[in-house]
């Protein structure tokens, strides 16, 4: 049960201690890949921090997400090098192929898309990572093929 998981996760942090906000958020992100709404409610009560403040802190950092990751989580690098090598074209293509925008998840839960800062693969720009696996020097046709393959595998009509 997710609720039980959260309780055991919160046990580590003493109640009412605001300084544990970020470690607790990191634990949640680690656990579910995102920070669920119900968990924020519980965390607010546990650490005695208003939910709006938690949300304010969490959105300050890029590392926290509020929507779940899809089965295939696409991370598109939008760092300087990748941008120069056409990341914006790749983004356009990804958005239209997956039917979702940055920070969203497809209705069937298969795809999610995240556009982020530098992923650290500047030498192989442009870079797209799928579930943490890096694909460098990516051309438009390669990207299209990659998405089509996944769709075939998941038997989604293109």
């Amino acid at each position, binding site marked *: 049960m997710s609720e039980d998981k959260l309780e055991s996760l919160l046990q580590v942090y003493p109640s009412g201690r605001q300084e544990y906000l970020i470690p607790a958020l990191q634990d949640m992100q680690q656990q579910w890949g995102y920070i669920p*709404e119900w968990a*924020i*409610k519980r965390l*607010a009560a546990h650490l005695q921090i*208003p*939910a*709006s*403040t*938690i*949300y*304010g802190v969490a*959105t*300050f950092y890029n590392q926290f997400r*509020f929507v779940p990751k899809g089965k295939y989580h696409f991370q598109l690098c939008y760092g300087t090098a990748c941008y120069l090598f056409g990341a914006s074209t790749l983004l356009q293509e990804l958005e239209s192929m997956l039917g979702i925008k940055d920070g969203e998840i497809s209705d069937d839960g298969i795809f999610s898309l995240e556009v982020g800062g530098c992923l650290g693969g500047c030498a192989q720009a442009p870079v797209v990572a799928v579930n943490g696996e890096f694909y460098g020097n990516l051309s438009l046709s390669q990207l299209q093929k990659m998405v089509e393959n996944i769709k075939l595998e998941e038997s989604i009509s293109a």
Partner: protein
Amino acid sequence: MTFEIEINNKPVKVKRGETILEVLNRIGIKVPTLCSMKDFVPTGMCRLCVVELEGRDMLIPSCSFKVEEWMKIKTHSPRVILARKTIIELLLANHPDDCLYCERNGNCELQQHAEDMHVRERRIVGGRNQTLVDKSSIAIIHEPSKCILCGRCVRICSEQMQIATFSFTRRGIGTSVRPALDKPINSSNCIFCGQCVRLCPTAALADRVNFSEMQVYFHDPHKKMAVTYSPAVAAILAEHFNFKTSRNINAVIHSILRKIGFEIVFDTSMAADVMMVEMCGDFLNRIKQNGPFPMFTSSCPAWVKYVEQSHPQFIKNLCTAKSFSQLAGVYAKHVITRQKSLLPDDIYLVSILPCTAAKFEASRPQMTLMGISDIDSVITVREFIRMINMYGIDVHRIITEINEDFSTSASVSGKLVNISGGTTEMFLKTLSYFITGQVTEKSFISTRLVNKDIREFKVQMGDNTFGVVVVNGMSSVPVLMQLLAERQDIHFVEVMACNNACMGGGGLPLEWTVDTAKRSMKYLLDWAETDKIKCPTQNVQLKEIYKNYLNVPMPSEFNERLHTYFVKRDVFV
């Protein structure tokens, strides 16, 4: 300890501990500010109050520096003025620029500063803020594109009201003030107190204005327009317009409302008496059933919502009697209509209050019975003043309708319910009558002592001793909760969410201050002193109303028109 510093080449005596801004304001030098709030720790966020300090390369924000002996300050040097002007120009760079159609056109602080700085051309061009307007809530409209991130709403909401609906989210250019998880205000933990609306320098937070809806009914031949206002509104207008004390303010307000086009005009005093009687009904029932105690007042809609969402375990403690403003609606729709041989549906009732949360209260489903809402539209004093201007009424020269008879047999409770401690005083007086059978002359609590945030005392009535707590402002609610956790001998708790109760309400004129609140409170108390009927049970009309129009005993036994219920709210707190 005093010493001298130099301001604009002149020596000035200052006290240790004062900030530079305080000194400047004291000696008559106006310095623009956007983020500073009286009695709050300065944040130095807006940088508008910068001054030049000899020996420092950078300009410093005067709000967050305390005076020291060596200081030589220039408040309006060319460098300072250029800096201030640039800040305003930068704030305007991404502002939506729809001033002419803006809710705050003419009384916007940003607009005023731009005017003072003589900004006459668009020197800095940025992308316009484009955000959706949050119109979800019945009381407060949030338009983030007009937000200049001064942080006043965030601070008043968390530091004073203890609610923290808003927080700064995201960062850099994407920073915006939002409720938790970007939820709309309606599904957030906002209690609609409206303090943020009064503080917002722009129209990022504004009232929901009900003019257009109301005006439709002015032209509806099937509806008679009715309006009710609390005596507090009279006191606020008297202070706001500086009426001469010799004038009959009730007559003036009646005349204003008649000129606007309302046919039926009455004040809420009678409803306040009904509320007192019904509160006693609930309390006596609690005594019979041995609890649950303490009974909380439920006349402050902001406090009611706070209990529903943050302390659902206390919902059963809320008094089930409707608030006086809602009861005024019941009185209009079920008593006045019958006196005038009308149907409840035949009138459109507008209620004028210094409160934004009342808009929310009037919209609660519990306040509509068989398709008839107690109140059709709530407007704030702020909107009322605008209406006075719209209908071209000169309040000082208006010819009052002197033939009208304003005397009612209502007691002073209507004048006191809007003051911290007033509800308690009148409730205890009424209760004492129901328990001992006699009207008492003495007062239980001094309503003139309003500087205190929380008061606690014991009251002896017959064989009973009751513990009473009066809370003035949400800032003392944590203390109250602590008290309730430790003690079992508290029977009655009055809470008014705003500081200075309704005289510090969210629907007051924008330029309202603590001093004006105190002065208008004095009006109310003076009126209350000259009134002859001191206890709701002495109100002869009240008995007649109960018997002939409401057809219920007095107090009614949880009559569904006079009582309400509360629900738990699942929101982010």
